[in-house]
């Protein structure tokens, strides 16, 4: 590969690729307005460290969470980043209907996350089990295991909707 081609590849990622900043989700802002820990949320500052937990997802939600890190959504420009340990996290982003086989792991991950912390339940099955509700192998919704602050709907939610929900968490008015 010549230096010309490498330059071209690097140039191909110049800022015009990036999606314009979306408005925070109104639905999310309404759900968060009722949160009791508004004062605590002020301590977050303008950044969020997120630990993702798959609690039984079909992996569709994971694909769209991944997309947030691509050059188009570029989520780190908002001060939002994914971290490897719950010890480093402000937010747990939980997907899936919560299988019984993942209940303990979810609970332990929550317990390992320091206060103040928030839980975002991502996708339709994280709300109430979605189409897996009623199976003897699933619990049916994240809030049945750990307290949930925000739900983001969709199957899976498109990245822009996940972003709008997370931006609502960062809004000064909701903190």
């Amino acid at each position, binding site marked *: *590969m010549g230096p010309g*081609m*490498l330059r*071209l*590849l*690097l140039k*191909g*990622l110049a800022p015009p*690729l990036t999606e314009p900043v979306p408005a925070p989700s109104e639905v999310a802002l309404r759900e968060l307005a009722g949160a009791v820990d508004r004062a605590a949320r002020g301590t977050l500052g303008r950044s969020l460290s997120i630990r*993702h*937990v*798959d*609690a*039984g*997802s*079909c*992996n*569709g*939600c*994971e*694909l*769209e*969470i*991944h*997309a947030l*890190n*691509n*050059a*188009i959504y570029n989520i780190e420009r908002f001060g939002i980043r*994914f971290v*490897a*340990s*719950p010890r480093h996290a402000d937010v747990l982003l939980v997907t*899936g*209907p919560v*299988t*019984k*086989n*993942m*209940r*303990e*792991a979810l609970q332990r*991950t929550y317990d390992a996350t320091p206060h103040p912390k928030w839980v975002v339940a991502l996708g339709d099955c994280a709300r109430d089990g979605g*189409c*897996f509700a*009623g*199976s*003897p*192998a*699933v619990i049916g919704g994240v809030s049945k295991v750990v307290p949930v602050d925000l739900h983001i709907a969709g*199957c*899976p939610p*498109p990245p822009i909707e996940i972003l709008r929900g997370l931006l609502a968490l960062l809004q000064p008015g909701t903190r």
Partner: protein
Amino acid sequence: MAAATLTDVILAGAPVPHHGPWPRVVVRPEGWADATELLAEGRATLLGLWGDGGWMHMALAGGENDIGVLSLECVGGRYPSVGQRHRPALRLERAARDLFGLEPEGNPDARPWLDHGVWGVRHPLGSPAKTTDAAPPYPFLTAEGEGLHQIAVGPVHAGIIEPGHFRFTANGETIVRLEERLGYVHKGIEGLMAGADLDRAARLAGRVSGDSTVAYGLAFARAVEAAWHADVPPRAVWLRALMAELERLANHLGDIGEICNDAAFALMHAHTGVLRERVLRASDLAFGHRLMRDRIVPGGLAGDIAEGGPAAIRALVDEIARVFPALVELYDDTASLRDRTVTTGTLDPALALEYGAGGYVGRASGRDADARRSPGYPPYDELAFAVPSREAGDVDARVWIRIEEVTESLSLVRQILDRLPAGPVRADPAPPPSIREGMAIVEGFRGDILVWVRTGADGRVERCHLRDPSWFQWPLLEAVVEGNIVADFPLCNKSFNCSYSGHDL
């Protein structure tokens, strides 16, 4: 003395009526044993093994389109283990034992697989019995020697990944043994399928593994259509293939970047991430959903392609065709990256053959198989495409298979758009008056997906089994990491990219 061929075993069995497109026969234990010998001798490939009430079914391929399903009644809830002679069956038998309570006599592994002891019920698809016990400990296989230590990873991993547990035994940096423990995302999909109407069953099938939602939708629809002898309008057949190739493109582009990213080469990841996003946006524009979920239904499609869809997809493939060669060159020319992928995680072609490993895992280790070509299904018989195959079997070879398949899929998308027939996209099939059974094998991006379905007189699903390609790839990951360093495990794992959800069901 083993029977000569799978055909002989099938001819010796009692045919079950209304099963399509391949035969299903009831066999006696001798027939079951003959088939097991065929597998053990490498003269047949195991396609699936699943429970159904008090029966076990085994799907095999004996050769080109020589496919059949053998059924054995499990007298007293027991049947002779296939896995004791043919390793790829071991986990399938453990799963069937957990779900149905059917005991594979001779299977050397008595441990549960999907059942972690917390469902509150035993044998949920057989004769369910309530349980109240706490989760029992799971004894991992041992490795003994001076200086060996264990590393426990998961089920919650350090990235945006599905959950599973990996138990490494290492000597310094070198992996001596890896044992997987899966089942964490078991949702009981096959239980939910029982009694579901076709709409709900199709939605469930599309949620077995989200990255393969098109392929699963297609496999389920084709299984029902085979059972009901339903015709699908030509336009729907071609649009289904268009969606399937878009799904393959999106996943391969994502994988190529992620594998490189696991070797700390972020530039490739950045570029393929953009291309993948372009595929999803064009898919959204054309079909109304970024992953094209719930678009394929038995009888055709839920809706036609949007008016601007074909033009958007043409623009997409033109852009990828323009950018991709430079990325391939970047991969090929970056010595520090190739240094990580070449000779890392090498899969012996003999193992790939034994396990009937599908997709890039099999094809990178010399297995020349692709369900689009054999057994084949329309419209691929009218399309020109090559099935790449390599011998090296390492991470590098699995990257190259994906690279070559991206090029093939771009060509397929263009061919499909050039020849897309006009007409309706849906012909709702009429439920037959009695029980029908059908099976389909579809090539997803990761390999061959098998769906077997039985519908009742009311047109509802009685039993549906969905076998992900990962069943025959996960065990091979354990084999390929042996002797590699722990730090190369993510690279090996990503190059396999097995589905947890598809496996756990």
